[in-house]
């Protein structure tokens, strides 16, 4: 069980590292749509729904540090916003029908919209002057919808990576009604 946790956490953190690297080097979204898509909110949603608090905390800390390393952002500025977005999902986990793609898309979109807003709020509070104008609204929209779509893609990919080295949990046993509805594992 411990090895499974470690492997799953490792896969999520590795995905964050590669995601941040691709965000910096793969510029096609920026060239086509004028905005770059942030993979971390999508990963936070996946972690909040499919993993545990330790992994979520590690993801928020390391993801934010890695991202700011390749950016002009202050070091770790996205840490609290990412953790906050993840915790909102963790607190309401039983209310989400996590197996439904639409719920995943909505959560991914909401997190991808919330995180940059909070980061910008922090940046401005700290006295930085980010480039903002009306076009930033379009960029925000692209980031949010792109993040939602990325969330949809991440679930099967990371579930596959997790399942590739472990047996599937045996289905059965008693489950509470809200667990059956939300898709919680026993």
């Amino acid at each position, binding site marked *: 069980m411990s090895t499974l946790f470690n492997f799953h956490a490792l896969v999520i953190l590795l995905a964050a590292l590669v995601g941040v690297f691709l965000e910096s080097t793969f510029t096609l979204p920026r060239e086509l749509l004028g905005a770059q898509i942030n993979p971390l909110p999508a990963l936070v949603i996946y972690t909040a729904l499919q993993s545990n608090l*330790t992994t979520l905390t590690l993801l928020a800390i390391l993801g934010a540090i890695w991202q700011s390393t390749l950016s002009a*952002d202050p070091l770790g500025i996205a840490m609290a916003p990412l953790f906050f977005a993840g915790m909102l999902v963790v607190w309401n986990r039983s209310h989400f029908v996590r197996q439904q793609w639409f719920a995943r898309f909505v959560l991914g979109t909401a997190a991808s919209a919330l995180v940059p807003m909070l980061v910008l709020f922090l940046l401005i509070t700290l006295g930085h002057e980010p*480039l903002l104008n009306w076009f930033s609204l379009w960029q925000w929209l692209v980031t949010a919808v792109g993040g939602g779509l990325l969330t949809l893609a991440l679930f099967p990919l990371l579930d596959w990576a997790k399942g590739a080295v472990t047996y599937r949990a045996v289905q059965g046993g008693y489950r509470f009604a809200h667990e059956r509805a939300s898709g919680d594992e026993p």
Partner: protein
Amino acid sequence: MRRRSYQFAAGIVLALSLILLSLPAPTAARLKGALTHSFAPLFGMQHGLQKLSGTAVDHALPRAALLRELDALARTNQLLRIQVDQLRGAGVENIRLRAQLNLKQRPNSPLKLARVIGRDPANWWRAITIDLGSNDGLQPDQPVWVAAGLVGRVYQVGPNQSQVSLVGDPACRVSVKVRETGENGILTAGPFTTFDPKIVHLHHLSADTESAPEHTVVTSGLGEIFPPDIPVGTIVEVDRNLSTLQTTARVKLAVDASKLFEVWVMVATDKRAMNTP
């Protein structure tokens, strides 16, 4: 129990955020530089793949095309050699005249070629990452340019990588002059810079400015970062408003930063000497 673990995790995240955000700028920059090592294997793989694809393209190129290119380069080389010979005389004369006027000599600052390996992931900054760092002699505020014109300045330096703040980024304001009129101004991001990163604003021109569209904007050499006379862009529109004391112009940058693959960094040790008029 669960509630306590939530509080503990939130406490760790908040405390770490506060510590990192309150670090002095040089310490944070050093820490960032050290943390770029996390990406070293990925950047190494990217470089390897680029080399591999480059080799494949080289093998696929027809010999005739290569010979044509070689011929064109040989001709350009000859022309440049003639120009260098002509300028050498002017250079000697310049040194002699500077000595007579007791002016400081302009140093020959070495240039280093750097590869662009990444761009700022955030949508609200304009910055690139290059593959040279403090191990190669880079320091913050060194100017970066290409043949077409000014690119920006070195912003943060790591051991093997650095971040370059591009012209138009809030962290890269450039003191410039209009070559045709000699008027000075400051180049900053404009309302359209996010939409079109090649358009920036030139501020602090006088109300009765003679600057006009098609005029060339070059670095003024004022300030201690950029040497004078590096091309920056061309004026596309002058916003004349007689009710104000200053005029603003829209400038189209000479360099399209989205198409940059290699840049030159001026690795000079004495900034003041670099800006000698």
